[in-house]
Structure formats: structure tokens, C-alpha cells
């Protein structure tokens, strides 16, 4: 089995070098042969009919489209293939895919460009050059056919991978001319299609990578088996920043299957055994002494107290400013004020961290999931002590990631383990417990909202003070500005094509006070849009109620200068039937935001009976500019709601004695099918820009529901998650 055997239109294995391994098994009848993901050796590349870096066409007309961005369930693999296939004008039923490796990308002068996959950028960040590649390949194929016939390329037409010269009644297929096309110079210029004429892109096509997910044959990173392979399970100091003082290897080294007990680095120990269970059993029994350091004194309470100080501290980090909000607030006759908070979240992808490494003094090879293949390659090189040219990374399809694998911490640990066991392939697997404790957490923040209102209920000034942890200060210090974290104000920026606020206030101040606890933060699906949308959208709702205005009518007044924001809000409101009365006992809430280049809104219907919340229905509206696959957008929106509502209902990682307390799904609960609301998705692409899809809508689910909860109960939930709040009506 291999990662692509069952994808549609997959091609003969002879085209790529594949390494088949027979994994040792207890019973001969169960010996499992599988191939780890195909990769292109230089020699193999020449043997393929590579029209250009993105398009490979075989003599049997099957097509492989190369995919450089990570696929972790978000479906961009299929969307990217659609964009290439659209311009290529090939037969979609013959399309398969192949994942690009970062070392090949490096070797070929970054011909596949940026491989990193985050910020909902997989499609919008590469649409232009992948479409161009498809169009260029088409042009080269037509030219090859025309040359063969001795006619002009302009006289030829293409439909579904068949090239026809009508005048001479001749036709041929892409597969027949691909090898010749490979020799033709790429066109200097191509004309991309008008998206309104698309027939493959823009269609609700099914994913290319489904079949092997349904029969268990897809090999994820956790599933790799190589001959002679060992399994390593690491454990790092549970207090981030703490050190590994000592461990008593002798206490466990005689246990069944245990091969090595290793110091990995300053803060990590690992047990290496022949199987997962034996490694885990020994690791659980291993006496370890940590030097936890001062961070062990930190708790959720101490963090909250510091953040509270930040709500009124001096700061010069301003994200958005109009007029003088502070002065107006000081003189206002009526001020509404409220404090909010949003806790740490763990990504908790279903597949925990893993990486398989084979280290030799000459070469280091990795198989594993990553959202940043090139950074993973660099991490392999750095940890292996080898030049990058001697390192190889085979990215695999990922069992969910949501931003967790934008960080390569686990890659480094895997290499540092394997390096101590030369020539032996080592699969490093984390336990769920390690994954929960050593996460890269959605940062913790608080927010103070203050608004000045005039007699007529208009907002004269708004001050939004965010006090919180910076992601970039930890993840990418190089992008920090003199004042703070450039992504702190997602969804609140004064303008621009990415994260602009949808309201106009005569006086506005949005500023940020930074406090960075030792808990390591990361980019969690939706990133800072999550809490920023809760703070702003719930508080705007508070203002509407405080002034006796309908929340939609109130927003309309503030949104007159923001037609795209307003259009999706109107669409969501219309979808839920805002103008008509909800059924008895059912209440509604609204929210809108712009993030990752797209405009999104949600309208929710809930009921609260004896303190029990039921979310009946959420209507989502999104304007991503262009739609590449409507049914995938629908899946992303429903899926992001599950993720966002899981956080709203249950998600909370608390800190005690410096450690994260939640170690598994029993204490870090998530939403399941029983609580899933009906989700209706309205897509209103207005064209002219390319917005993201995987993340933006996550941010409107929680505020829309919280506003509906207020409508139902009169209780304003300002501190998440909801599980800590008693919604019982008096």
C-alpha cells in the first residue's frame, strides 16, 4: 500500500522511484508490504514525462499534479489540483497527485516556491503560479502536437486532454505528446482564464485523496513501519523551560523490548523500544527528576492577575486609532464597560506528533507530517549536524494539524533521538498526554472594552484594550515590531486586504499590552481572530442591548463604510430569518468579522432549558472573493465551527505549578456529534480578490452563539469556556 494507490487516475508506479519495505510481522500471513510516499530521485525525474514542475503526464494519459502545500484535511490538495487542471484543460477523471519534497524543491531552485501551509494561504498564496503552470503546460502540449503535424498551434483546439487539428481531421492526446512537450521552451506569457468561465475549478468536485482514508490503507506518520525500526517515546519537562535533572535508566532498561533510555536534550528523556506499548510502559515506570525552575510557581491565577494589570497599564502598542477615544470617554455622560477573557487552547489534532528518522553519519532522512516542509528540512539539518544537502524530508498527509505543525519542535526531538542510534530507523511517537502538555498553545488574553454613548444611543468612542500573550514573540521573534506582535490585531486593523475591522467609530483606540508567560504559544486555527471577534462582536451586542436597539440595525449604522463586511452579515441574517420571529423558546445572535482575506458572518439559533444550552442552527455567510470548490468550503466552515465551538463550550488549558493540567480528552473535552448544530453555508463570492477559507469562519461561531445565549438568558458570558458558567435561568 502507499499513500496514493487509490487516488483517482493514479499512475503506473514505474514513473517514480518507490521504496517498498516489508515490515516484520508476527505471522507470515500478516506480513505487510507497503510503500512509503513516492519521491522523485533525479534519475526518476528524467524518466517521467514531466511537462513542467507541476504537471506530469504519462503515455496512458494519466496525470499527476504536484502538490507543494501540506494536506491536513483542509482539502487544498484538491483545490490546487483543480486550478492546475482548469488551465491545463485536461480530463479530471485522469488526475492524481504527488506530494513535493522540500529537498527536491531546494535542489531545483525552489521551483515549487513556498511550501509552508498556514494562514489559510495554501490556495490564495499559490493560485496565480499554479494556474500559470497549468496554462504553460497546455501551451507546450499543443505546440508539441502542432510541431508533430507541421501545423500552427493556433489552429489546434483542446478539450479534456485531447488536441485536435480540425482542418486536417487529426487528433492526439496529452499522453502521446507529453514527452515531446517536455523539450519545448515554456511560453513567455500565458493568458489565464476568467474565473467565470471555469469548468473544473469552481465546481463541487470530490477530494482526490479520499479512498485510502476509508479502508485504512493511508499510511500516516504514526503508521510507518520500516525493517528494523524502533519506536521512541519522549517526555519533556512538563514545566516549559524546566530541565531534565536525572533519570534512572537501570530501573527500566531490563523491561521487555526496551533498547535504549536516552537523554534527548536539556529537557527531554526518551525510551526506545521495539513497540509503542513497551516503550510507553517503560517510560511510565522511569524515575525522572526535573529541575522545574521558577516557572513552577506560575499558575492560571498568577497569569490572570498579570493580564488584569495589563488592562489598565500604559502601552504604546496601538493597532487602530481614530480621533481621541480616551478624552471622549473621560468626558462622556454614559460609559459602558466590560472585561472579557479567553483561555489557552491545545490544537489536539487527532494524530499526535510523530516523525520517523534514519540517521547515518552521511545522511539523515525523515518521513513525517509537517505544515512547513522547508523549515522541517532545516530542522533536520540543524539537529542532525549534517549539511542540508545530505538531508531528506518526505512530507506525509497529516491527520489534522490546525497550526500545530507550523512548529518543528517534534522534528528536532526525533532527530536528536535517532542520531544516538545510527543506521536504525526510529519512529518517534508522542503519547496524547505528551501532545497535550507540550502543545503550542493558543495564547491567553483578556480584554477591556469601554464605550462612550450619546443620548441617542450612538457610540461616540470605543477603547478596546487587549492584554495578552504574543505568539510571534515566541514563534518568530524576527517579525516583532518595536512595539509588539504584528498579528495581535487580527480582525481589528484599520484597513487592508487581510484583517480589517468592519465598523467605523468617530473615536477609536485599539491597543495591546503584552505579557508572555512561560507556556509556549502557537498559531491555533483562526489565531488571534478567535478572541478578537468574541471581544468585539459580543461587546457590540452589549451596546445594542444597552441602547435598546436591534443588534442588526445597530451594526448597520456602524458598518455603512464597510459594504463587504455588511453584505455577509446581511446574508447570514437573511439566512436565519432575522426579520421573522424565531420559534418559541429559540433565540438568535449575530457576529461578523474579516480575517485571512475573507469576509465572514454567522447567525445562530439557540435555546437554553434548565441551564442546558442547545445550539440548533448556525447560518454562515462567507465572501472569499473566488470559490475554487464550494463543497470543500462548506466542509471547512462546518468543520471550523466544530473547532471554534469546542473551544467555546469546553476548551481550556489551565496551569498549575507551572504545568498544563489537561492531559487527555477526558479533561480537555471537545464537541461531538450529539451537540452538532445544523450548519447552513451561504457563499457570496464578490470576485476581484482571493481570500482564505480554512480559518476565518471559526471566529464568528462563538460570538454568534454567545450573543444568542444572552438573548435567551439575559446572561452575558464574558469568560470562556461555557462549561464553567451556570446558565440556569432564575
Amino acid at each position: 500500500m502507499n499513500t496514493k494507490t487509490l487516488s483517482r487516475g493514479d499512475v503506473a508506479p514505474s514513473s517514480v522511484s518507490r521504496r517498498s519495505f516489508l515490515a516484520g510481522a508476527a505471522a507470515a500471513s500478516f506480513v505487510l508490504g507497503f510503500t512509503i510516499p513516492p519521491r522523485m530521485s533525479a534519475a526518476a525525474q528524467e524518466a517521467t514525462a514531466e511537462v513542467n514542475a507541476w504537471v506530469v503526464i504519462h503515455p496512458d494519459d494519466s496525470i499527476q499534479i504536484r502538490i507543494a502545500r501540506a494536506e491536513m484535511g483542509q482539502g487544498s490538495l484538491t483545490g490546487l489540483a483543480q486550478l492546475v487542471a482548469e488551465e491545463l484543460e485536461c480530463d479530471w477523471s485522469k488526475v492524481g497527485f504527488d506530494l513535493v519534497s522540500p529537498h527536491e524543491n531546494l535542489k531545483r531552485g525552489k521551483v515549487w516556491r513556498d511550501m509552508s501551509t498556514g494562514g489559510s494561504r495554501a490556495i490564495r498564496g499559490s493560485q496565480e503560479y499554479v494556474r500559470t503552470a497549468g496554462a504553460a503546460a497546455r501551451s507546450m502540449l499543443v505546440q508539441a502536437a502542432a510541431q508533430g503535424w507541421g501545423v500552427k498551434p493556433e489552429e489546434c483546439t483542446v478539450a479534456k486532454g485531447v488536441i485536435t487539428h480540425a482542418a486536417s481531421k487529426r487528433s492526439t492526446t496529452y499522453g502521446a505528446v507529453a514527452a515531446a512537450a517536455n523539450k519545448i521552451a515554456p511560453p513567455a506569457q500565458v493568458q489565464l482564464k476568467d474565473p467565470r468561465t471555469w469548468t473544473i475549478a469552481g465546481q463541487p468536485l470530490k477530494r482526490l485523496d479520499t479512498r485510502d482514508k476509508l479502508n485504512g490503507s493511508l499510511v500516516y506518520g504514526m503508521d510507518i513501519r520500516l525493517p528494523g525500526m524502533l519506536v521512541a517515546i519522549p517526555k519533556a519537562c512538563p514545566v516549559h523551560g524546566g530541565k531534565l535533572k536525572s533519570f534512572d535508566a537501570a530501573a527500566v532498561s531490563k523491561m521487555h523490548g526496551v533498547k535504549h533510555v536516552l537523554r534527548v536534550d536539556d529537557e527531554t528523556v526518551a525510551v526506545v523500544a521495539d513497540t509503542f506499548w513497551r516503550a510507553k510502559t517503560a517510560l511510565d515506570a522511569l524515575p525522572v527528576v526535573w529541575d522545574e525552575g521558577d516557572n513552577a510557581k506560575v499558575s492560571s491565577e498568577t497569569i490572570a492577575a498579570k493580564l488584569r494589570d495589563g488592562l489598565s497599564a500604559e502601552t504604546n502598542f496601538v493597532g487602530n486609532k481614530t480621533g481621541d477615544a480616551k478624552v471622549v470617554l473621560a468626558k462622556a455622560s454614559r460609559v459602558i464597560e466590560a472585561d472579557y477573557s479567553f483561555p489557552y487552547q491545545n490544537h489536539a489534532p487527532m494524530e499526535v506528533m510523530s516523525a520517523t528518522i534514519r540517521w547515518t553519519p552521511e545522511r539523515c532522512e525523515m518521513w513525517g507530517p509537517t505544515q512547513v516542509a522547508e523549515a522541517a528540512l532545516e530542522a533536520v539539518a540543524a539537529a542532525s549536524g549534517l549539511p542540508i544537502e545530505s538531508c531528506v524530508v518526505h512530507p506525509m498527509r497529516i491527520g489534522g494539524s490546525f497550526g500545530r505543525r507550523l512548529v518543528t519542535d517534534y522534528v528536532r526531538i526525533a532527530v536528536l533521538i535517532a542520531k544516538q542510534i545510527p543506521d536504525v530507523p526510529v519512529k518517534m511517537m508522542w503519547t496524547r498526554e505528551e501532545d497535550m502538555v507540550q502543545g503550542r498553545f493558543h495564547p491567553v488574553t483578556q480584554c477591556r472594552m469601554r464605550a462612550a454613548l450619546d443620548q441617542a444611543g450612538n457610540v461616540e468612542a470605543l477603547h478596546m484594550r487587549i492584554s495578552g500573550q504574543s505568539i510571534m514573540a515566541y514563534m518568530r521573534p524576527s517579525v516583532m515590531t518595536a512595539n509588539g506582535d504584528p498579528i495581535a490585531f487580527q480582525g481589528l486593523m484599520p484597513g487592508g486586504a487581510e484583517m480589517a475591522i468592519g465598523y467605523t467609530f468617530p473615536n477609536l483606540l485599539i491597543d495591546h499590552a503584552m505579557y508572555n508567560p512561560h507556556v509556549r504559544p502557537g498559531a491555533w486555527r483562526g489565531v488571534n481572530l478567535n478572541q478578537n471577534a468574541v471581544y468585539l462582536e459580543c461587546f457590540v451586542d452589549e451596546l445594542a442591548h444597552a441602547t435598546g436597539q436591534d443588534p442588526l440595525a445597530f451594526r448597520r449604522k456602524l458598518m455603512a463604510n464597510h459594504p463587504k463586511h455588511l453584505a455577509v452579515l446581511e446574508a447570514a441574517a437573511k439566512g436565519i430569518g432575522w426579520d421573522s420571529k424565531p420559534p418559541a423558546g429559540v433565540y438568535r445572535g449575530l457576529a461578523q468579522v474579516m480575517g485571512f482575506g475573507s469576509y465572514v458572518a454567522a447567525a445562530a439559533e439557540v435555546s437554553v432549558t434548565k441551564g442546558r444550552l442547545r445550539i440548533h442552527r448556525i447560518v454562515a455567510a462567507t465572501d472569499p472573493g473566488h470559490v475554487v470548490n464550494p463543497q470543500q468550503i462548506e466542509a471547512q466552515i462546518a468543520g471550523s465551527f466544530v473547532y471554534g465551538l469546542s473551544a467555546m463550550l469546553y476548551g481550556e488549558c489551565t496551569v498549575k505549578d507551572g504545568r498544563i493540567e489537561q492531559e487527555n480528552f477526558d479533561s480537555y473535552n471537545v464537541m461531538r456529534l450529539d451537540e452538532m448544530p445544523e450548519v447552513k453555508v451561504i457563499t457570496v463570492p464578490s470576485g476581484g480578490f482571493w481570500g482564505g477559507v480554512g480559518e476565518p469562519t471559526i471566529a464568528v461561531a462563538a460570538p454568534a452563539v454567545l450573543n444568542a445565549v444572552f438573548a435567551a438568558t439575559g446572561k452575558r458570558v464574558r469568560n470562556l469556556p461555557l462549561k464553567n458558567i451556570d446558565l440556569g435561568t432564575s
Partner: protein
Amino acid sequence: MARLNINGKFLDVDVEEDTPLLWVIRDHVGLTGTKYGCGVGQCGACTLHVDGVATRSCALPVSAVTADQKIVTIEGLGADKPHPVQEVWAELDVAQCGYCQVGMIMAVSSLLAQNAKPSEDDIRSEISNICRCGTYPRVLAGVQLAAQRMAANKG
């Protein structure tokens, strides 16, 4: 040493008694379709059938399973031809990352074997597997469509 009947074949595995069935199947037998998600019976990623009943194998020591109990994993479920649930799952494009879907399919196929016409409430309460990608709406639609298909095939 344990004797197991997996996907219709008997085999002997040399493992410690407390080894969870999940790890016997993944590491000793070499069938990796059954997934590890939590190891504590919370998520359902490791669901397989024991005598037709959906069972979370991460929390079941191998010593609790006898050779006369029939274990079926995802590799055995659609071995001859795809199970109707797998067919419907492809049709509705249910899977996102896919990691939880093997467990989902095993849970759903067992539910439908026991309750051919589950109500929406039955489905919501019986299928408690975690999907972090959030495929629940299509899972719900998939169970309903698979139930219809299976009823039609019988009738």
C-alpha cells in the same frame, strides 16, 4: 502468548498480557488502519469489532479477548467489497484529514448492524467518536444514507 482471530484468520502473538488490543494489532500484527487517538477510551479512533460490537481497542487488554471472539478491523471490513458505509462515505466526501474516519466507519457499521433504522437521536448519542476536523454533519447524513441503502439492498 495470545491466540487471536483477526479478520477471519487465527494467529498467535507473543505479547505481554496487559498490552492493549490496539497495539497488538498495530505493532505485532502489523495492521495500522486502526488508529491511536487518546489511549484512554475517549475518542474512538481505535474502534474495531469484537463479535460485531464496536469496541475501543486502546483500553482493552489482549488478555480479555479469547480466540473464539471474532475481531474485525477496517482491513477486514471491506476486504471482499467495500462496505456500504465506506461507499456512502466516498459518495458524500465525508473525510477531511481522515484520521478519525476508520474508527467512525467501524462504529457506524456496527450501529447499523444492530439498529438498521436508527433515529437521528440514536445516531447522535451512539456515535460519540471525536473528529477534530468537524465532519459531524456529513457523518450524520452518511449514517442515514447508508441505512437507506442497506435497507434497499435487503428488500
